[in-house]
């Protein structure tokens, strides 16, 4: 006897709920659709990079505006092209290297800066390049294990090439343009005169070091594993990856002379569905405070000079955009790189496989 009552009660409650839902229905749907339009999707590198972005950019932005940020990893230029060509978007914003941004802009894959959203007086000099906003600066440096060189480690690319004075296992980044740059500096070209590159001279210099390169690495994690486990004694490494090892207590030292400082950019995919909100976010992300928050977490340099006001001197000295570091680094020529990468990459790959 109790059972049917229970069922009835249950059904009545259900009917009531359904009626309430039907009445509230339109309201709920509207609410949800607003929330959906107020979400932006960002293509980024994942891992510790995204974790730092979450804390420095995404969460503060959501707190300030209510616009939610979702991430998709890893960064893929191929996907940027596919999205724009097909008109199907997985994300609105991408983090992208400056050379790739330039290529993407030339191919018409980027949304032009929306000056109705972005305010010029809120930007720093050189913040805008090829329809992107400058995000942060990344150093590609010579890094070495101090414990392997008690008499003092290599101080330049010439030392890296000097296998007699500095014996030990070496590793380089499997990237044509970077490798050629370092070879030229090792051969005596001043860091600010590397571009336009003498490619033949660089390959000749690379021939000398090739037999001594144990690994040509491709992934950031892989580079850390090599130096952490002592597989190699000195190597080409991204500055924040090396600083991270030093913070974990590994005896790792960075050399700034002849390092390459490249700018990472933000770009918005052409005709992306949330592009207005995207530009709102980007304007927020290049402000001094978020930029400093990011640099304090990952040691990539802020592009906004004002950000250094929020960064301690101890941290600032380890950043690529710190004046003393930038002064001795290679001055990149993005246009030259974008024009020559494909040809050089083929020759480099062939050289590596030979």
């Amino acid at each position, binding site marked *: 006897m109790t059972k049917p009552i229970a069922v009835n009660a249950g059904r009545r409650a259900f009917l009531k709920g359904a009626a309430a839902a039907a009445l509230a229905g339109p309201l709920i749907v509207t609410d949800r659709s607003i929330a959906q339009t107020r979400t932006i999707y960002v293509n980024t590198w994942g891992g510790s990079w995204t974790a730092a972005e979450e804390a420095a950019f995404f969460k503060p932005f959501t707190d300030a505006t209510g616009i939610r940020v979702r991430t998709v990893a890893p960064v*893929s*230029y*191929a996907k940027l*092209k596919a999205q724009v060509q097909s008109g199907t978007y997985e994300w609105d914003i991408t983090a992208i290297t400056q050379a790739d941004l330039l*290529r993407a802009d030339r*191919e018409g894959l980027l949304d032009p800066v929306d000056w109705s959203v972005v305010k010029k007086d809120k930007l720093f000099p050189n913040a805008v390049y090829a329809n992107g906003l400058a995000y942060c600066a990344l150093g590609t440096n010579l890094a070495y294990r101090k414990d392997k060189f008690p008499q003092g480690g290599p101080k330049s690319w010439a030392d890296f090439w000097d296998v007699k004075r500095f014996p030990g296992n070496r590793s380089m980044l*499997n990237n044509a343009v970077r490798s050629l740059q370092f070879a030229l500096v090792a051969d005596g070209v001043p860091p600010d005169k590397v571009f336009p590159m003498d490619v033949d001279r660089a390959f000749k210099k690379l021939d000398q070091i090739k037999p001594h390169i*144990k*690994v*040509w690495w*491709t*992934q950031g994690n*892989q580079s850390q*594993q090599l130096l952490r*486990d*002592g*597989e190699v004694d000195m190597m080409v490494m991204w500055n924040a990856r090396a600083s991270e090892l030093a913070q974990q207590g590994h005896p790792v030292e960075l050399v700034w002379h002849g390092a390459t400082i490249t700018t990472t950019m933000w770009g918005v995919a052409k005709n992306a569905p949330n592009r207005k909100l995207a530009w709102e976010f980007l304007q927020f992300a290049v402000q001094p405070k978020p930029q400093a928050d990011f640099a304090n977490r990952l040691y990539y340099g802020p592009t906004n000079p004002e950000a250094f006001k929020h960064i301690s001197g101890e941290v600032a000295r380890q950043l690529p955009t710190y004046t003393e570091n930038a002064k001795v680094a290679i001055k990149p020529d993005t246009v030259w790189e974008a024009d020559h*990468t*494909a040809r050089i*990459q*083929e020759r480099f*790959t*062939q050289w*590596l*496989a*030979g």
Partner: protein
Amino acid sequence: MARGLRRNTAAWLLLGPSSLALVLLFVLPIGYVLLLSVTDPRLGLAHYQRIFTVPLYTRVLVNTFLTSLVVTACCLVLGYPVAYVMARRGGWISTMLLTIVAMSFWTGFLVRTYAWLVILGSKGPVVAGYQALGLGQAPRLLFTTFSSTLGMTHILLPYMILALFAIMKKIDPDHLKAAASLGARPGAAFREVFLPLSLPGVVNGSLLVFVTCLGFFVTPVLLGTPRDMMISQLINQQIDELLAWGFASAVSVVLLAATALVVTVYNRFAGLDRLWG
């Protein structure tokens, strides 16, 4: 007539969904790749000309096939005895081996690749064992063609073992007893009876491993040298770094054609319908 028609309709209905899926997910994309290879960025066969004139591409293509051949041979040599024991011995030995092979099969290949970085690394057990035995400086193991081949063999070995096992399990043990009763020693019985009967497994496993190996690239990148580069790595570079989709498509088409050639030869001599036993 009507019945035949109805049977035909039923057959088409049954075939329909899978054929549609194959056309949508396989035939069309590959057709698009083929089209891209001769139209992007402009109409012509320039990409194909480049593949066969720039030494890098033919060289890497040849290396890809040679590497796959070596890995297939290694898998066969290592896998045959394991599959043999699994098939011939019942009970817990077979179960244990099958479990080990399956666990290896289900572990991500990236995890297994990184495991070799640790095992063969300068602080790994191999080098430590070498030094503990007083053999002096261990030879360089990591970042060589050896470590790259070892890694790929490890990853593909379960495919070979399972393909062999599937065939060997079906060989009637009475055949071997009959051979013995006719006076064959165990060696002769294996050579004259078991081995020929297991050949379909050998061919299946080899084809499976060989074709899968053709598409590998992460393992040789992480464990090997730039000389061990596989063709997929070049395709990936063209797509993701250089955005040269037309050229990447052309390289893919060449790889596909070469693979199709291998499968055709296989079909000619072994028959594709026997692939799954």
